């Protein structure tokens, strides 16, 4: 048996090795290098925590980090709630729900540049939204150059990622056995009670995956913001990626490395924290 398991182990290792090598070369090793650079000046001399001090005193970093956090805090709950409701509704629709589910995925298939064009058509100071607003004899709003830009970004993020999240929820929902709901009905639970006491607990594992993926996707919204606003967009949509992009151009690798490490730590703490709290609840 031992011999069999050792062989199995080596077979598994061989299968995993190519992927592991790829991840190591393109992700792990560069990340170790970044962590190393976070403690060095550009000329290679050791500077301790100077770079970290610099970034926490840097107004641009604080603004970008604040905006990124604000974006995540606003978007994630919205996305989770709306997509969950949509998934639950679709599930009750039967075959029609299956068709509608596919249509939710369409926004993901649209290239970012096309999305930006649509964005401009709608939200430009002479765009369709302002035309609509003018019908009500209200003053036009410069969506892209005021704090409204943040909400446009939120809308864009929700619109693009809703379908994917709905899909993930649907997968989780379909994994819940019908017998549980039947038992619940027999015990006299109404729709809301069944949703709260049966559906939600069984979706915990899916929720964890969805939250992590949504956090990752929230960083991708930078593409739209960059194409619309360039390197220096309206303040409210100036995010960490803008800052990293600009630092790279300005050769501020020391600050960039320190900020990357900080971001990594924050995300790690968040993910681990979420995982632990979910595990505790399930116990």
């Amino acid at each position, binding site marked *: 048996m031992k011999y069999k398991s050792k*062989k199995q182990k080596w077979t598994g290792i*061989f299968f995993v090795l190519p992927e592991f090598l790829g991840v190591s070369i393109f992700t792990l090793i560069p990340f170790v290098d970044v962590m190393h650079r976070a403690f060095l000046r*550009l000329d290679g001399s050791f500077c301790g925590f100077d770079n970290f001090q610099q970034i926490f005193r*840097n107004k641009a970093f604080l603004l970008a980090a604040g905006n990124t956090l604000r974006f995540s805090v606003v978007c994630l709950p919205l996305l989770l709630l709306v997509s969950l409701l949509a998934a639950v509704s679709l599930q009750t629709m039967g075959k029609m729900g299956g068709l509608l589910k596919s249509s939710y995925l369409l926004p993901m298939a649209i290239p970012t540049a096309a999305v930006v064009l649509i964005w401009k058509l709608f939200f430009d100071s002479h765009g369709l939204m302002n035309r609509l607003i003018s019908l009500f004899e209200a003053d036009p709003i410069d969506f892209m*150059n005021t704090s409204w830009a943040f909400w446009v970004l939120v809308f864009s993020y929700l619109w693009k990622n809703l379908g994917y999240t709905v899909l993930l929820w649907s997968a989780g929902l379909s994994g819940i056995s019908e017998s549980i709901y039947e038992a619940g009905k027999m015990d006299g639970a109404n729709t809301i009670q069944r949703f709260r006491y049966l559906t939600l607990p069984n979706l915990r594992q899916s929720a964890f995956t969805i939250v992590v993926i949504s956090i990752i996707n929230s960083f991708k919204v930078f593409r739209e913001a960059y194409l619309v606003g360039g390197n220096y967009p309206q303040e409210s949509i100036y995010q960490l990626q803008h800052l990293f992009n*600009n630092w790279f151009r300005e050769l*501020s690798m020391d600050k960039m490395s320190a900020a990357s490490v900080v971001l990594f730590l924050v995300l790690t703490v968040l993910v681990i924290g979420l995982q632990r709290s979910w595990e505790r609840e399930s116990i």
Partner: protein
Amino acid sequence: MRKKLKKFLAVLVTASLCTGLAGCGGNAVSQPEGGQPEDKPKDEAKTEDAKGRFLESQVNLPSELAEIMSMGKLEDGSIMIAGFDPTGNYCKAVSSDMGENWQVDMLPDFSEAVSEMEILKDGTILAVVGYADNSELKVISKDGQVKSTSFRLPKGAGEQGGSVTTYEDTDDITIETEGEKDNTVNEQENVPEETDTLNEQQGTSEAENKDASEQEKIDIDNMIVQADIDGEGNLIIQDLYAKLCRIDTQTGELTELYNGEEDGLDFFGIAGERIYACTENGMKILSAKDGSQMPEDAVLNEVCQTAKGDLSGAMGAYPVVMAEGMEENSLVYGNHQGVFYHKENGSVSEQVINGELTSLGDTSMGLKQLLMWDEITYMLLACDSVGNSKLFKYVYDENASAVPEEQINIYTLKDSTILRKAVANFQSTHPDVYVKIEIGISENSGVTAEDAIKSLNTNILAGKGPDILILDGMPVNSYLEKGILADMSGILKQVEDSDGIFENIKQVYEKDGKVYALPSRFLLSVIEGSDDTVAAGESLTKLAEYAATIKQEGKALFYSRRLILETFYQADSGTWMQEDGRLDEGKIKTFLQAVKALYDLDGDVPDKMEQITVSLSLNPTDTEGFGSAGIAVIGRMMKQNEIAIGTLGDLYNLRDLLSIEAEIGGSYQMMGETFLPYMSAGIVKESEKKTSVQEFMLAFYGKELAKSVSGGYPINRSAYEELWKKEIDEPTDSSLAMSNEEGVIISYDMIPLTEEHKDKFTKEIESLKLAGIEDTTISDLVIEEGEKYLKDSQSLDEAVQNILQKVNLYLSE
């Protein structure tokens, strides 16, 4: 069995991935333009073992010859060159020792100018005397006997026949159709009246009225654009209407070989019995005997397409020069990429001489003629940017390393003629050093400046960065902060001691006695117009107020509304930065208000002017230092605009401006105390100890380069003084004529520059204290928001706030 299969699959997948990864990197395959694809090692400096290459040397030319029109190899192996001396007399020179010694002989005096000259193997010279219809072909034998043969070029294309008018003492040639002759200077009695009227309108009392009847005009139906000789000694010519004809030198009989009415004809070359005609649709290969077309050659088509972007042919030379190869049906051709040997219909060309290692890489040099002397020797006749003839000899040295062992890497965002010239000059004096230019944004590449800078930064971080940076368009302040650049004060001190530098400009870049970056050239922003206009130009606000008082309906104030923002930004931005490193809000507000007021004043002017300038940029890097003030002032003379604002880029610009002022009155002054830096360079810290890098920078800021290129004024004092001296001591007589929209011909003489002009101008330069903001991030942000404000897409306050928000965000990073 299944387990064994699983194991086997696992090992196979792993092995495939490892093999695939190992195959990454390694040699890059590159294709030099006009040549064959060849495997090139990435670091060419490491090919130390490869030996043998052509070494360039410049042949000393006889001082009697001011300009060389043709060269030829004689049957006895000697070289003959023919041209004219400084007084305009034609002469020839022969050398039997490849240019060490020359025997100069005068040619017969011709009554008219020689337009083309070719040399046959037996020493006979064919000279086309005069232009077109009354041209003569003079056949001058080696012993001086002259035989004349008349010939007549074919009638020009088009139903109206067309006509060409040229004047003595002017290079300006206009083509007009017969129907318009009534409105042109061909009607001599009209010109003085028009000139008088124009002068009266412009109120000048000092203008000299040039009577066109004093100038001799020659009506020409057609003319020869290019000439060469075929293998049998016949003259092959290209005329103005894209036709190729052979002229029998004995009878003068003209035979049309090719009609370029459909495909056009840019230029042609001859190798033996083949004519290679570069047309719009590629290279046409024709028989020199009867003009019959041969099958196309893909390689030569590519050469022809590449040649279309080369403007050095505009100087009377050609983008590609061709000659017969040693083998049958082979040719050699030379362009700025080098000299190539090609067998007809072959799929490849062999690069014989690398342009990057020789003066061929100098894109400001015009190529006139190439000869394959023998298997190990090539001769190239060329001219520099000011028309001085140069003769280069390339001899194969089997002991010289194929690529010089030492290498300098220079990085520039955009290609530059000045940089190419600097490299060519340096390499000619340092054949053991290979200077490689890396261009961040090449034409049609689609790469943005940001992408290019990011790639550069990656290379710098990886330790594979260049030795020298041309800093135009780059984040100089970031590089300074990060300590990327080395202190150049030692090198600049040497230049200062030998030639002198404009101290006021250097001081702008000096920090604690160190200089990390310095422009080698600069431009000036000027305002030109009436005395009141110039007085108002003291500040933008005053100018806006004054402009409102002189604005007339339907008449433009400026030659381009679109470029107002950029022009005023260049002139005004030097004063915007406060001590704390942030932008001054008040100054930005004033700037935008003034520009908007001026922009709005011109709102009712037709868009024709805007369309003309829509693709123009005023950034010195984009224009290669070309000054825009000349266009603006000409516009004022043509009454297209009232106020001329732009940049002065060289002494010719200044002379143009002063000449027009002499004609129509007015004056100019500098706008603000700001200069526009151009061709700034810096040494990357890791390379500061390299001797070759230091020597290159010495040459880059040195006198020789500074005085031999155009585009901006040199920071090198000696070069600046010498340029002035040349203009003052050797003024060229010329005049310019042009017609405005009403068809009125307006002309002016170029006045000679004087010591007074020089003193005034130099004082003005010495008073400059600020550099225009070089940071393109800031300029892009200001101009982007400024354009929205000009188009009323946002209010003044919004524009100012957006600019401040974005720029301050940028500065806080």
